[in-house]
């Protein structure tokens, strides 16, 4: 007899395995890091062999790549996109600008730390990160998924008020539907 705990373990393993090997990346170049995405996806680096491929709309996507700096105007759209994505979802902060503002630390229009506004699973540093480091970032994400540690959507739901407060601090004209899906 298999008890419930063991069978759940098996189901989790299969789920995590398939989640890990099938990452649909949101096709949204939010910053200049988008230039290395084609290189990562195409022949020399070929991210598709890890099951990473593009998805055209937020509904179909699993991974949101924040490629570099986020202008406040884009941040609003990124939040919309992020909230439209279905769980389980993952966020990768790409480039130094998402970590501490990078070279735009003193700009009046770019945010400095991404995890203040949406939860982040993996940061990839560098400006630009090379395709190798992008892939290594994805592999780190895959490890997290396999271990069941990538709970981005859950973190967002649980700390929604904190994130909302931070977001509203920057986006002055908040005309967005509530997070109810």
């Amino acid at each position, binding site marked *: 007899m298999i008890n419930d705990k063991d069978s759940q373990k098996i189901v989790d393993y*299969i*789920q995590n*395995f*398939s*989640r890990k*090997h*099938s990452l649909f990346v949101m*096709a949204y170049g939010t910053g200049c890091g988008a230039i290395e995405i084609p290189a990562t996806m*195409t*022949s020399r680096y*070929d991210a*598709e*062999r890890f*099951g990473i*491929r*593009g*998805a*055209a*709309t*937020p*509904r*179909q*996507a*699993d991974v949101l790549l924040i490629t570099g700096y986020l202008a406040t105007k884009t941040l609003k759209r990124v939040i919309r996109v992020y909230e439209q*994505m*279905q*769980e*389980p979802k993952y966020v990768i902060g790409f480039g130094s600008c998402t970590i501490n503002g990078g070279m735009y630390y003193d700009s009046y229009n770019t945010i400095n730390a991404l995890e203040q506004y949406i939860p982040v699973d993996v940061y990839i540093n560098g400006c630009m990160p090379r395709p190798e480091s992008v892939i290594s970032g994805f592999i780190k994400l895959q490890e997290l998924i396999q271990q069941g540690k990538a709970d981005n*959507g859950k973190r967002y739901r649980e700390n929604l008020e904190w994130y909302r407060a931070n977001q509203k601090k920057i986006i002055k004209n908040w005309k967005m539907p509530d997070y109810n*899906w």
Partner: protein
Amino acid sequence: MEDLGLKIFGAILTTIMAFAVGMTYGGIVRKLTARVQNRFGPPFYQNFLDLVKLQSKKTNVAHGFMGHTAPVWIMVASITVLMFIPILNGNLWFPNLSFHGDLIFILYMMVFGSLGMALGAGQTGNPNSAIGVTRGLSMMVGFEIPFVLALVALMVQYHTTSIQDLMQIQHESGTWLIFSNPFAFLAALFASLGMFRYSPFDIVGAPAELASGPMSEFGGKYLGTMMSGGSIFAFIKLTLYVDLFLGGAGNPDHTGIWATLAGIGVLLIKTFTLYMVPVFYGWVSPRYRTEQAIRYFWGWPTALGIIGLIWAVY
């Protein structure tokens, strides 16, 4: 009663096989595409992983009744059509609800899934979906004409509207219909380019134009169901073509287990070869605009269909 039980078992087996084969073909095509593009490519079972992942995603979005049921429509339409397609000629394991006139019935049923999709996509309210649906229906107007002409040519030539009869005729005469009416086959082959939605006819879900067209608002389980429905449908189309033009597979005189397996092997070879036609064409073609695509179908393919019809009459 025994017979019925066997038939139900066979139906389930057919569905599973169609699903597995369709998905694997998709995976192999992805791998082959990658090799053409100088890449290593995903493993051939990648589509199954995608499917498991999509089915295990949470879905907290509601788009109304049609939005919910659109993938189900596709699935239902696929399985229904599958039941009417003879997989192997006269084999008990793969039953078909064949009756006289099923060719016409299938022609209608094949549109059913797209219709459900159209209604579902319409309800999501995404403008990309709406435009994608319009494009899909226009495309259908385009490729259905040569396709129907080709089928009518066959019906006229052999005075039957039953797929099983056509298969039997090919089995008895020893020649495939591709040789007895090549024009009808060519017309149908061109139509198949449109049906499979590879380039240059991937205008329905063209990413650079409409995000992903009708599927824009469908993710997770919806997308997964659509994917499996689409895979079954691809298998259906291929099997139908093989049944009609390439002599089908299997031998009604031998229905033992080994003969069945051999029949399936033949079927796989034939369907895969046929599948490569739109895929090869897709690798090297950019996308047509909608009106260009329709003009394409109403040009040579339709002319070939008419020639096929005339050929059949005389």
